[in-house]
Structure formats: structure tokens, C-alpha cells
């Protein structure tokens, strides 16, 4: 598995779509260079958004429909009174119980192979329910009306197109310090736990591995130097009861309602057709052409 081969050459097993892959970011070795951001934009041909706020090194205030991965910069003074600068590569966590999948009314968002949360932009209607449902602010709808992907949601795909072709995700491939690793999820968890122990031994008493249990297990794992909240990551992310209610009660009811509506329409159509045919039989030839058009 993961540990036998080196991370750089690891590939998912094409014969086993139930295998869980993951990406692990060792933030202790992230240098905040943003090469991952650029590689992501380039591979996915996403457009540049020049919207940096003054007074920070962070390139964008948050993820957006064209920006699928972002280094978040956290500057703080720690318990020892020392300045600390933390970098966290933020993107879709590919949750096992995903808020976005739960909220999506058109099934554009689904659980795909290898544990990846997939997004089919063809099916996306831009309702933005996923935006509301994501506890990580990792999926957004493009509100630029001039963009070809206007009113479509966008987020990290875990480079599904690359990994299914035996390549590493673009950000992993480009990372100069190899702090982003891609591999078998269980093997990465084992590696991450070992790394946390090393960091603790070195004096990082708050070091922890994030993503093992959250939302049934994330497919984006982090070796963090400080508690998750310091990075703006929820320690116990939840899908709100309302989202679940929406998915498991309102939507089925709605579908039922839609079904009933369609039934009504069908009855209506049959009735209308009958009336039309009766009318045609009565010799209203003029309406022929119009009916053919409809």
C-alpha cells in the first residue's frame, strides 16, 4: 500500500472504486508559496480573480467558484508570547457525509469513486444551497454573469480527471516541499499520526491530525500545529438539521409534490388533446400549423 511505494508514484487501484484516497497537508512543512493555487488554476483553466485585500499575504479573501484552493494565512501570538505564522491550504474536504451533497436538489453533487465528492456542472442549476450547507466554505456559485460558467457551482475535484488517469492531483505534483501528499487514506492517516508524534516530541504540544473522524471522515487530512479553530477549521463540523430535513423530508415530499403536479399536468394534457382532436375533427383547419409547431 501507500508506505511500500513512495507517495510520489502512488496510484489508486482502478479495479477498486471503493478504495478511499486522500490528500494530506503537512502544514508544518507548508511554506505558503501558493504554487498549489497556481497549479490548480492552470490545470482546471479557472480564471484569475485579482481581488486581494490590502494588509495580508493571502491572495484572495476566500475560496470562490474559480478559486478552488487557497492558502489561508493566520498570524498570531501564541501562549509563549511568540509570533506564529500558520499556513493552511484550504479547499473542498471531500466529506464522507457532505453538506453539499445533502443539499443539492439536482444530484449534481454526488459521492463518486474513491471517496471523492463529485460535481456535475451540467446538472447544476446554481441554486447555491450547497454554499449554505458546506461547513468549510469550500463550494461557491459563480456570480459573474459574463463567465461561461455563470450560475454554476465550482470546487476542488481532487483532480478526479488526473487521479483516474494515474496522475497525482495538480497541487500535489507541484508542491515544492512535498508537504501535500496523495495516497491511500488509511496509509496517510498512519503517516500523519506518526508525524504528529514527531512534532510533539519537537515541542509542538498542540500538534494534531485533522480530518480522521469529522463528518464520517474527510478525504482531506491535515497535520496541524495548533488546534483546528486557530485555522478557522471547525473542530466538530456538522450538517445542520435543517439541511438533513431538507434532504430527507422536504425533498422527497417535494418530489412527491412534483410527481403529483406532473400527474395533474398529464391529466390536463390528455384532456386538452382530446379537446383538440375533437376540435380538429370539427374542421378547424387553421389551427393545424400552430399545433405542429408546439
Amino acid at each position, binding site marked *: 500500500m*501507500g*508506505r*511500500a*511505494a*513512495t*507517495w*510520489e*508514484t502512488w496510484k489508486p487501484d482502478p479495479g477498486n472504486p471503493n478504495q478511499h484516497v486522500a490528500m494530506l497537508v503537512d502544514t*508544518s*512543512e507548508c*511554506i*505558503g*508559496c*501558493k*504554487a498549489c*493555487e*497556481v497549479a490548480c*488554476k*492552470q490545470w482546471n483553466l479557472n*480564471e*484569475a*480573480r*485579482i*481581488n*486581494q*485585500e*490590502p*494588509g*495580508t*499575504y493571502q*491572495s*484572495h479573501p476566500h475560496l470562490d467558484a474559480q478559486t478552488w484552493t487557497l492558502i489561508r494565512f493566520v*498570524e498570531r*501570538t501564541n501562549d509563549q508570547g*511568540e*509570533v*506564529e*505564522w*500558520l*499556513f493552511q491550504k484550504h479547499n473542498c474536504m471531500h466529506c464522507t457525509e457532505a453538506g453539499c451533497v445533502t443539499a443539492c436538489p439536482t444530484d449534481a453533487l454526488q459521492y463518486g469513486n474513491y471517496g471523492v465528492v463529485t460535481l456535475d456542472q451540467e446538472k447544476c442549476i446554481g441554486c447555491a444551497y450547497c454554499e449554505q450547507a458546506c461547513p468549510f466554505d469550500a463550494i461557491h456559485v459563480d456570480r459573474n454573469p459574463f463567465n461561461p460558467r455563470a450560475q454554476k457551482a465550482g470546487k476542488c475535484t481532487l483532480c478526479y480527471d488526473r487521479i483516474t488517469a494515474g496522475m497525482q492531483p495538480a497541487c500535489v505534483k507541484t508542491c*515544492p*516541499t*512535498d508537504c501535500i*501528499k496523495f495516497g491511500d487514506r488509511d496509509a496517510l492517516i498512519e*503517516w500523519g499520526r506518526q508525524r504528529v508524534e*514527531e512534532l510533539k516530541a519537537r515541542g509542538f504540544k498542540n500538534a494534531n491530525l485533522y480530518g480522521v473522524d469529522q463528518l464520517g471522515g474527510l478525504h482531506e487530512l491535515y497535520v496541524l500545529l495548533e488546534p483546528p479553530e486557530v485555522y478557522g477549521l471547525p473542530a466538530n463540523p456538522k450538517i445542520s438539521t435543517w439541511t438533513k430535513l431538507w434532504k430527507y423530508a422536504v425533498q422527497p415530499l417535494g418530489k412527491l409534490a412534483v410527481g403529483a403536479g406532473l400527474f395533474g399536468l398529464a391529466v390536463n394534457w390528455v384532456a386538452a388533446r382530446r379537446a383538440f382532436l375533437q376540435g380538429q375533427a370539427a374542421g378547424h383547419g387553421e389551427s393545424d400549423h400552430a399545433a405542429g409547431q408546439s
Partner: protein
Amino acid sequence: MTTSFWDLQNADVIVFMGSNAAENHPISMKWFLRGKEKGAKVIVLDPRYTRTAAKADMWVPFRSGTDIAVLGGLINYAIQNGKFHREYVVKYTNAPLLVHPDFQFHDGLFSGWDPEKQAYDRSTWGFQTGPDGQPLRDETLEHPQTVFQHIKRIYSEYTPERVSQITGIPVETFLKLAEIITDTGVPGKAATFVYAMGWTQHTKGVQNIRAATILQLLLGNIGVPGGGIAALRGHANVQGATDLAVLWHDLPGYLGIPNESHKDLATYLEKTTTKDSFWENKPKFMISLLKAWYGEAARPDNDWAFHYIPKVDSRWFSHYDIFQSIYEGTVKGLFVFGQNPAVGSANAGKIPQVMKNLEWLVVVDLFATETADFWHLFGNDPKQVATEVFFLPAAGPLEKEGSFTNSHRLIQWKHKAIEPLGEARSDGWYAVQLGKRLKALYANSTAKKDEPIRYLVWDYDDPDHPNDIDHLKVLKEINGYEVATGKPVSGFGQLKDDGSTACGCWIYSGILVEENGQLVNKADSRKPTAPNRPDGWVEAKGDGTTDYLHHGWGFAWPANRRVLYNRASADPEGRPWGKVPLVWFDHAAGQWKGVDVPDMLPVKPGEVRMGVRFDTPFIMKAGGLGGIWGGTSLVDGPVPVHYEPVESPVQNLLYRQQTIPTARTYQSPYDHYGTPDKYPIVVTTYRLTEHLTSGVMTRNLPWLAEAFAVPFVEISQELAREKGIRNGDLVEVETARGRVRVRALVTSRLKPLRLGDRVVHEIGLPIHWAPFSGVAGVQADITNTLTPQAVDANVQIQESKAFLGNIRKVTA
């Protein structure tokens, strides 16, 4: 770099000082982090808490421009506490040698200072010699005229308290730092010092590096696993450009430019060759160079065409001298390849003003730059500018074949990935064409002065595509070949001084060899050692069997050696000092062996010639001894001592001599200097990961432009409070030379510095923005309008890391 990135895993301590590797050499950071993973302590000395500091165990802020005070303090600490590697110092360095009896150092001046000439007479900086011509030595290090005693005396003033008052490092912090670093002053332990522009861009840039050299030699940290001084080079191929002497004061392979006192080749060789060193082979390298350049026209009867090479006089011809000469009217035409001096040069405001004096200007670049468009920008009226400007489109890095030589002297071949756009051509193509056309122009000249052009060997055409370069022809000339057969030489050991070999750059020799009748380009070799760790890298092993230095990948000069001076990794008997061996003497086989290519003369341990041990590690230095004492090699002193920058907020606490006396400033209506009463704040400049120098190659690409769009000045919380500035406010930074408006980035990553009983503030700005180039939304004022053209006397680098300014809040 004396060392290799792959060897950094062996370091016990890694000290970044004058380097922000995580931001400016992100690829290298991988290897530093490998060292950290294996237990190295990482220390960052920098006024700012950078992205490198974010990965360090210890961040020590100090005032820009006081590096020698810090390093001098560490030297003093090592000597006073006996924390240095005595056997290494005695056997491998010039510490036991006796200095000229008339040498003196008093109040910041060395003996020989001539206030009229503003230069040193260096005759008292050398060593005392005995009747056999060899330097006198005292291995007890007790003789008062030994280098060791001089060093001990000079740095005795650099006490922790004094260092603290100069640099702003609290005494306790300095002592902790000193303890960690000097803990490596024992056999088997090593620290690496990493530097870049933070050490070089000062009026004492070369002396900053010399200070680290002294400390590292005292600690026995050069040439040993995990040791060394790592100079991180600024661009992909800046090391290659230096090696091939794209410089005014050198010839390829560091042979040195002849000057007007060198009437013939014999005089040049006599005066510039270091005796009792490997440099005794210099005649072979120099005559082979002349054969490479002038071919059949280089003959014994015309002194091998030595007189075709220009001879310099006492003037300088470096970057800033070029623009000063344009201002003075002596330089009339200018070629600019891949540079944007109107944005990237110090005192940038001067550049587009003096360029109006040019008759013609050629700019070769990927994008139109401020320099190419100077004639209608910066207040220049096109009607008043007579300069004829030619803009030629350049091919990008992926659009051309060639090689990169990176920081660890590793030459890697690269192939063209795609054809250049439109009529764009490589820089090499332009250079070859220029040479061809110049030769055609002078082909029928009979004037003596035109012979260097007429007889220049200039055959780089690709036989299959006459309008293209055959890059292997260029590489073969660099590598060297037998004149009679044209066969490449296998290394510089084959070069001769009888005209039978030609070689364009002796240190690269061995890069192109003939194996089984085939030309093999070693720079193109891609055979890494197989990983022995799950995360894909190769760990060094104590038994010396693992080639963790990847000798099958590319070619490192010289002779594919990865760690220079690696003889020093073993004791005088040839036994490795530490747990990881680099080289060792195999007594059974009677020869040196190693994980690396052994760096020494082919002699046995302890072999004595001409009265000195001849197996010492520093074979390019006299007697093979490491240069704790610099002797006469630099123009500004045999050892580094602390001077304040040309613009400084304080008096020199150590000497009456305020600044390094050899520093030069230029006289023009555009050169101004400020004083601390008007400009009390220390200003420094730097680069960011996201952009390259003047930003032309990055601000023009939307995906890179968005990565860092807003230029800024970093200021401490304390200074911000004092000045009523909030994060994100528009502010104006002013120096004696100019003003820029940028956004304030208020941060805890900069701290006010306490120098004794006063507080000094420091602010910093990146240099990547310019007012015209780039995609929409990433234009701004030019930071370099703030920086001074005050330069170092050895290499003429500008002091853009430490100068004076002020800051105030403004409204748009």
C-alpha cells in the same frame, strides 16, 4: 554553495541569515526541511519574521546592516569559550600563519589606508615567509602575530553586550544563539549557513560572507557533511552566468580579467596565480581559453593572442558604472537582455532620466518593459528624446534549449518544449547573430584593433538548420577539446599549456565526454539514486555505500564533485570525523575513496612537499589552507569588521570610522543621501515568492498576478500606533531619493529594535511592482526609487538592504 542540497539532511544546525529561502528559493526549502526532519535546529536571523522564519525553531530579529557585528560576536564567543575545532583550525586553515609584522588595525582602519586615493595599500596584509619562501607558522597559535591572535584581538571587542547595542538582539538571546551554533565546533557536528541577497546587498557585501567563512572555518564546518556555506543564487542560471563570467571583472572559470599592468601573458600569470595551490595549473586553463576563443590566431609567437583580451584600468565597469557613464556621456549604446533596470536597479528614478543620453537602446524581452518604453514614460517627452529604441522579442525558458546551473553548481540540460511565439528568438540566438554580423562587418578590415573580432572563433551554426544554434557545439567549446582531433577532453586534467587543447571554461570540463565513440552530455544525465525512504528521498547512510548525492543526475562542477573541499570531512590521517563519511583514505588500496568525488591533490595523508603538508583540503588557496585571514585578496580589508551602512540611524559604536571607507557613491543630480534627523527609520527591500524581480514575467500572467496583487510596506504594530496607521491604510514612504505610495501591512512579524537605551524602527517593502507593465490591477510605484546607488568596492553591489526613510499616512 560549497555543499549540495542533498547533503543538508546531515546538518545539525541550519542558520538562515541574509536568506529567506522559503520565499525566494522555495524549491531549495524541501532540502532544508529534510534536515529539520532529521533533527537539525533551524535558526532564522532576519529583521522580519518571514515564511522561512515560520519554519524555524528560533527567529532572531536584528537591525539590517549589522551582520558583521552578529557574526563577529559569534567568532568572539567561539574563541573566548574555546568552542572551536582546534585540530581543523591548526591543520586546515591559515590561523597558525604569521601576519606581516607591520600589519595594524586601529579604530576601524587597517594599515595602508590612503585617504587621498580612498584606497588601501595592501602590502602589510600578507604573511611572513621564511628563507624557503614558505609562510612562518606557529601551531600553538600563541605567537602574537599569528592570524589566530589577530582574530582573537580584533573580535574581542564584539562582546554580547556590545553586539546587543549594535544589532538589537537581547544579550540572553544572543548567548542562546551562540551556544547552539558553536556547539557544532567539535568533530562530527556541523552547521550550514545559508545566505542570499540579505548578505550581498550592502556596501560591505563581500565582507559579510567573509565573516561567515571565518566562523565556519573556526567551527570546522566547511567541507564536512551537513556543513558549508550555501549561497542561494537569485535566478535559475545566475550561477552559470557567473561561472561563464557574464561579468566585467572576470574570465570564465574565475581566471580573473587582466589589467593594464599585465604587459604580457607571463606577467598576467605571474601576478594572478596563487602559488602552492591547484591554481598553479592556471597557464593550462588560460592558454586553453585563448585557443578556444582565437583558434589558429592564438600562437606561441603572438603570446597566445593574450593582447586581444581587453585590459581594465583602475576604473569600474559594473552595472551602476554603466548608467553613470551614460549620464556622463561616455557610453552611447546599450543592450538590455532580460532585465528591467528602470524598475529593478537601485535609485531607479535615475535610470530613465540618464537613458535619454543614449544614441541607441536594444531591449530583448518577453514583454514590453518600463526600460524599453522609457522614452515616453517617467515624464520623458518623446520629442526631446533622440534615442533610437529597438525592441526584440525573446523566447521564454521553455522555448529554448540550453542549460541551467543552479545554486549547488549542478548543471542540468533542458530541451526546448515548444516553439517560440511569432518571431521570438532565444538570447543565445541574438548573441550568435550579433557576433556573425560583427565579424562580417570587419571581415575586410586590416586594422590591428579589429583583429580580436576578425580572428574570434564563432562557429555555432547547426549544420542541419543554418539559422539555428547547435548547442552541443557551444557545450563542446566550454568543455574543451583536443585542437588536432576535435575530440572532447575528459576533464581539466587533460588541459595543456602548449596550445594543443582548447577550453572555454575549465571548471565545466568533463561535462561533455566521448564514450564508445558517442558524445555524452553529462548535464543531460538523469539517473537519480533509488529512494530508500517512503516519501521518495534518499537518506545518507553511515557505511558510505548510499550515493545520496545523486552523481548520476546532471553534472556538478568541478569534476562532478558535490561537496567542495570534502577532504576536510576526514582527519589529517584520512579518517572521517563524523558518523556520515564523505571521503576517506583507503590504506589497503593506498588511495582516497568516497561517497563523493574526493577533492584533493593525488597525495597520501600527511605527504609533505616544499615544507608543507600537501594533502590539505583547500587546494585553491595557498598551501591548501582555509582563509580565516583574507590576506590581500579583497580591496577593503583582510578581515571583516563592523561598519554602519552608508545611511544609518546610529553612530558606529565600535570605531570612529562610521562606514566602510572603500564604499562608493555616485555624483549626479539624481543621487542623494539622507540623514537620521529627517529619515529616522531603517528601510529594507526584498522579494516575494509570487513575483520575479521587476515583476515583468509575473505581473503579466494573470494566474501569478492574482497570487499577490497589492504592494505593501510592512510595519510593526508599535510604529503603526506611533504614526496613526491602521492595517490596509494608504501610506507614503519617503527617502532622500524618492517617494512611493503603497498599502500598510501592519504586523507582529516586525518588532522595534532596542539598541541600548534607544529604540529603532525598521520597515520593509517588496520590489516587484511598476507603474506600467503587467495585467490590469497590479501596477504601483517603484520601490527602487527609494534605494541608494551606494556600492561595495569588491563587486559593486548596491546597498538596497539597509537605508533610511520615513513613513506617513496619506489619503488617496
